[in-house]
């Protein structure tokens, strides 16, 4: 666990009015205001601040240090939550199903194969409309054997019905975890939220972050509001998830009602995500683009589309290109599900060509999944925008400024020549 | 007008069993019981024991009031039904009030039949059907030197024995050729009659009463072609007739009693009947005497109650089987079922042991190898098992001989294998 570093600089968050204490590190860790850590610890602090009733974890297949941080916080009394050391990810999420139906605010984290193993209850979670928050410390999938970052896990489950948020920075991870509970538990949403942060890139990079005040987070989140719609509580007996009637009786309409309600919740989430990010900025002074971030886009002729932490290096490459006079901008998707169609169309409409950088593969389309999403959004643009797929950063491969400079160059070429059908494999020549 | 889901007229065996059956299926429906009597219900069967003083009148009630309360039954005494309007589902009572019902059970029983004997209306005579009758008879019996009993049925025979025990000189007059006609054959009857004779009771069979005339302290009974017979006490025990006086114009068909189907439904909608008020169909489908049998009344009451409450477990009433357990002077006579007809064919078989002078008499009647009747004097068996063997039409085959030898054990062994 990272020690707390004493800061001499004033704390950015003026509301606290205090500077992190400089005495005993262990004591200090219990109430830090500023700390230097990776995204896993930041996420764990986000969990602490959100005060879940129950956390269930399984440490392997694979897991990150996130689970260990949370376990230690529970052990240290920093976090007052039931900790269930389940025997696998499948049970991890199942335990949280039960707990949420009993009214608990819940949290877990997983990724890669663990997510794959969890898939059966994962698939069911949004259909039960349980506002569970779960980190995915994104990983690539096997085979070949791989324990490295990539977004294949989250991209593979994007049709399951969870809200999917992708963070760029360590601070954003912490803040987004807390915001995720507000989004998930909003009565017009009632959906589980995945807060994604990139394995290796964010999970291992140590930076300075700020911790909001617990009391202010409490005020921001309010009490858990989890099972008003579906409960397993002897005080309110009900049958959760009775069999619907198939082709007869009220079955089809009943089922359609559930599905349509789920879709409406997703669409409501677009509004709620924006509102929650606005409120977060107002209360805590940190502003994030809730759906789609536009970077140097207004005067751009073409742009990169990115998702997750790769945006950092990509922005550096954009800055360098701008200095060379190349009219390039950047679009970063924070919210992939629900898909922010309007925000995305507005951004795409500002340029004449885009190159979409994916850290995952959409096999049958011979491109990346975000590329597919972008293509779908382009259908709603008034003019035609050629759209190139670039795939990189698989299995922990670096996506450096140099890679993005190439991506910029490939995208610029769309202005003068036809868009290739083949994706550009950015790390194909890396050794 | 008061209204009940169920109204039951009468509170004797059939009515009480019907109440139990209704409540077993319908825990909520409102029930009223209207009884003519001013006292708690009493079975006519115990009345001879009241007459003899063997049982005090305050220890013979069939049910206490609490039993009705527990069943949430509105139990009303001295409530006489005067008229039934089945078309409008309401009853008029003797006091002029009206009660509406959802379903009605007629279980008003029977009243003593008074034979058309000249002069009978001019003399004081007793009957034995109610507790008041029994108390009056007991009182009269204490001072009666000489008593005459008209009728050698069960009531007459019981009463005669008890009057004799009380010290009276008793004469029984029966117009048929034997005592207990219809229940026992001549041989059995003779054994019983002999017991009465041995205990000082005079039994005159095959004799008619021509007329009766008042006499100081009693009456004189004039027999056909014989001497007059003085009586300090005259008991008329010439059978009973169904109590149907209130059914005139009601829409309920009455023949020898209320006509019912196999679920004890009368011919009027929502009106059932059970017990002695009913014209009981015979199980055998012939003219065998049926009705007036206590266990039968209970079966009818249960069938009616279940049918009224819509209990899906209800089964058709199989028809009456004559059945009697008769105790006399410390001895016992039992009869179940029917005797063979005089002109029975080859399908009939009659097995008998114990003729005149022997310790016991037993007669077993079979048809097509199936039990039709068992009659015993001074032989013990289980009438309930015999009854069930008849109802089930059990083929006895070679067991008939064993049954004759030891009817109790053989029938029990058979029962144990059949319906244990």
């Amino acid at each position, binding site marked *: 666990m990272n020690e707390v570093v004493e800061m001499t600089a004033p704390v950015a968050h003026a509301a606290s009015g205090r500077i992190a204490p400089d005495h005993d590190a262990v004591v200090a860790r219990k109430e830090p205001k500023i700390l230097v850590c990776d995204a896993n610890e930041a996420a764990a602090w986000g969990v602490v601040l959100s005060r879940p009733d129950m956390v269930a974890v399984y440490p392997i297949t694979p897991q990150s240090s996130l689970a260990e941080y949370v376990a230690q916080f529970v052990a240290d009394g920093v976090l007052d939550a039931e900790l269930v050391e389940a025997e696998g990810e499948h049970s991890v999420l199942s335990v949280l*199903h039960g707990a949420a139906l009993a009214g608990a605010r819940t949290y877990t984290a997983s990724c890669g194969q663990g997510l794959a193993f969890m898939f059966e209850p994962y698939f069911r979670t949004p259909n039960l409309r349980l506002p569970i928050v779960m980190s995915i410390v994104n990983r690539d999938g096997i085979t070949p054997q791989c324990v490295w970052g990539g977004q294949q896990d989250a991209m593979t489950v994007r049709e399951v019905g969870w809200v999917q948020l992708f963070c760029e920075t360590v601070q954003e991870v912490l803040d987004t975890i807390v915001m995720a509970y507000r989004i998930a538990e909003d009565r017009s949403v009632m959906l589980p939220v995945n807060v994604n942060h990139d394995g290796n890139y964010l999970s291992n990079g140590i930076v300075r972050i700020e911790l909001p005040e617990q009391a202010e987070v409490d005020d921001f989140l309010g009490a858990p509001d989890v099972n008003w719609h579906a409960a397993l509580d002897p005080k309110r007996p009900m049958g959760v998830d009775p*069999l619907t009637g198939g082709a007869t009786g009220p079955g089809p309409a009943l089922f359609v009602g559930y599905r349509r309600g789920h879709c409406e919740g997703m669409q409501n989430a677009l509004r709620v995500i924006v509102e929650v990010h606005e409120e977060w900025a107002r209360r805590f002074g940190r502003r994030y683009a809730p759906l789609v971030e536009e970077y140097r886009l207004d005067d751009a002729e073409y742009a990169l589309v990115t998702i997750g932490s790769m945006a950092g290096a990509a922005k550096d490459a954009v800055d360098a290109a701008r200095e060379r006079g190349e009219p390039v901008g950047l679009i970063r998707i924070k919210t992939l599900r629900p898909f922010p169609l309007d925000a995305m169309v507005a951004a795409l409409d500002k340029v004449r060509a885009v190159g979409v950088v994916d850290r995952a593969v959409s096999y049958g389309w011979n491109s990346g999944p975000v590329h597919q999403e972008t293509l779908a959004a382009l259908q709603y643009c008034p003019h035609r925008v050629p759209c190139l797929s670039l795939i990189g950063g698989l299995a922990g491969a670096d996506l450096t400024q140099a890679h993005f400079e190439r991506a910029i160059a490939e995208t610029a070429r769309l202005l003068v020549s036809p868009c290739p059908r083949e994706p550009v494999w950015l790390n194909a020549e890396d050794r | 007008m008061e209204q009940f889901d169920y109204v039951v007229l009468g509170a004797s065996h059939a009515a009480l069993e019907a109440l139990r059956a209704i409540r077993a299926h319908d825990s909520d429906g409102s029930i009223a019981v209207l009884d003519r009597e001013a006292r708690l219900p009493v079975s006519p069967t115990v009345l001879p024991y009241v007459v003899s003083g063997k049982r005090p009148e305050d220890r013979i009630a069939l049910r206490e009031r609490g039993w009705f309360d527990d069943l949430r039954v509105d139990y009303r005494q001295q409530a006489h039904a005067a008229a039934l309007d089945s078309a409008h589902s309401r009853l008029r009572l003797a006091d002029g009030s009206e009660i509406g019902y959802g379903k009605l059970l007629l279980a008003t029983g029977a009243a003593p039949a008074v034979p058309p004997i000249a002069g009978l209306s001019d003399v004081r005579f007793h009957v034995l059907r109610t507790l008041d009758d029994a108390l009056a008879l007991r009182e009269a019996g204490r001072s009666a030197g000489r008593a005459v009993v008209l009728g050698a049925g069960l009531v007459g025979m019981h009463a005669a024995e008890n009057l004799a025990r009380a010290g009276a000189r008793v004469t029984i007059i029966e117009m048929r050729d034997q005592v207990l006609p219809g229940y026992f054959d001549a041989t059995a009857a003779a054994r019983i009659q002999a017991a009465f004779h041995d205990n000082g009771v005079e039994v005159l069979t095959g004799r008619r009463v021509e007329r009766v005339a008042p006499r100081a302290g009693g009456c004189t009974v004039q027999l056909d072609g014989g001497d007059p017979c003085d009586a300090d006490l005259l008991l008329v025990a010439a059978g009973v007739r169904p109590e149907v006086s209130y059914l005139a114009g009601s829409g309920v068909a009455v023949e020898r009693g209320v006509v019912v189907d196999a679920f004890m439904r009368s011919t009027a909608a929502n009106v059932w009947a059970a017990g002695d008020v009913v014209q009981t169909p015979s199980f055998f489908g012939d003219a065998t005497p049926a009705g007036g049998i206590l266990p039968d009344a*209970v079966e009818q009451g249960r069938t009616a109650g279940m049918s009224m409450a819509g209990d899906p477990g209800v089964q058709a009433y199989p028809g009456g089987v004559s059945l009697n357990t008769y105790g006399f002077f410390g001895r016992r006579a039992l009869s179940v079922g029917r005797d063979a007809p005089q002109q029975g064919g080859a399908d009939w078989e009659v097995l008998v042991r114990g003729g005149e002078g022997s310790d016991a008499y037993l007669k077993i009647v079979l048809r097509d190898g199936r039990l039709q009747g068992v009659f015993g004097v001074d032989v013990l068996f289980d009438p309930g098992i015999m009854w069930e063997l008849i109802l089930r039409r059990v083929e006895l085959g070679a067991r008939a001989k064993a049954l004759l030898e030891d009817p109790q054990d053989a029938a029990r062994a058979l029962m144990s*294998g059949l319906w244990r």
Partner: protein
Amino acid sequence: MSATPTIAFDAARCDGCGHCMNACVSAKSSDAHRAQPRIQILRDDESGRWGIAQCRQCGDPRCASVCPAAALEKGDDGIVAWDGERCVNCLICTAGCTFGGIAFSAAEGHVVKCDQCEGAPQCVAACTRGALRYVTTANLYNRWGDLEDLFVPGLGGCQGCNTELIMRHTLRRVGSNTVLATPPGCIPGMGSVGYNGMLGCKVPVFHPLLTNTASMLTGIRRQYKRKGRNVTALALAGDGGAGDVGFQSLSGAAERGEQILFICVDNEGYMNTGAQRSGSTTYGAWTATTPIGESARGKTQDAKNLPLLMMWHGCEYVATASTAFMEDFYAKLEAALDASQRGFAYLHLYSPCTSGWRFPSASNIEVARKAVETNFAVLWEYRRDQGLKLSRDIEDPAPVTEYLKLLGKFRHLDATQIAHIERHVAEQAQVLRELARMHPREGRQVVGHQSDLMAVDLDQ
């Protein structure tokens, strides 16, 4: 109305020795008279079998209904009592009874009948052949009859299935402060959770996934504990949802000692979906996925012993039970419920499947009984602090074939297969016998000869 214990008679075991009648005479005689026995054992020469005549203490006694003197009454203790103060000796009761249960005794001068000797019938005590048994199962009704049935009146089980019995009796006892999990299978198939918005029971109920029953209950139980509420977490699961695809979550929850009452209704396969093989299916059994053909003779592996597997988890309580032995089942349900307040409690119920095992629907309880009497299904219980105990004697079992021949799913078995099953049954019984002899938790064992006073405390 209370239910009444019964004196049950097994004609096949009776040899007519008459000890029961003598014992009754002794019990009921006084100085004044020699009693007539209230139990009669009689031989039917035609069939060569012994029969019995004795009062059944009917729930709806006709002897009492027909009594004109109100001398017979069924008491709160269930016994039909005779009142000599009221009886007029009319014998009409003997006409009301079709069992020869009340009869005139010349020596005693009145009718006599069995009164079950105030709960200790002497006839049963005198029977050395097991032909008479005092069956007190009726007491279950008296103890639990007033508890609310928490399932809907109509559950859609197959005809003759005992699972509805298990469900209703269990939930009655466990009560309404419960969350019930019924993973996919026969139990929700009957409608426990409900259909189309109609609920199947009065407690909160849900379909877990087939795989995650114990895990979901973990979350529920822990959350309520956290909030200071003692809500019972109850699972009614099939053998597949418990022991095959559901085993991981079951094992995990048991290992963690979650406070759950997990009941496995074992019908030895996936019977709700057309009788497919599971890990609990018996060797040799026909199932839809282990069919009989030219080169196949049913399942080729033995069933796993799920309750023993659960025992090795060190659960608070593990037991096997059968609906043919309801008192035993109830006692274990009680113990399991109690144990589930402290840790994991696992109850394994044998549930013969009328449709999937191919036997007449009227025979379910008989099949269940035979399974136990042949040691095919051994009844035992394990408590963490006491080890394993056998619930009934297993030393003189009936031949396994008596069980196998009842079931269509075994109809094709050849001699080799039968021998295999017999061997497996004997081995399982031997394992349980040995386990029952061990008392690992007692902690103190004498080492060396009897005379050696040195005792070693193995806990230290």
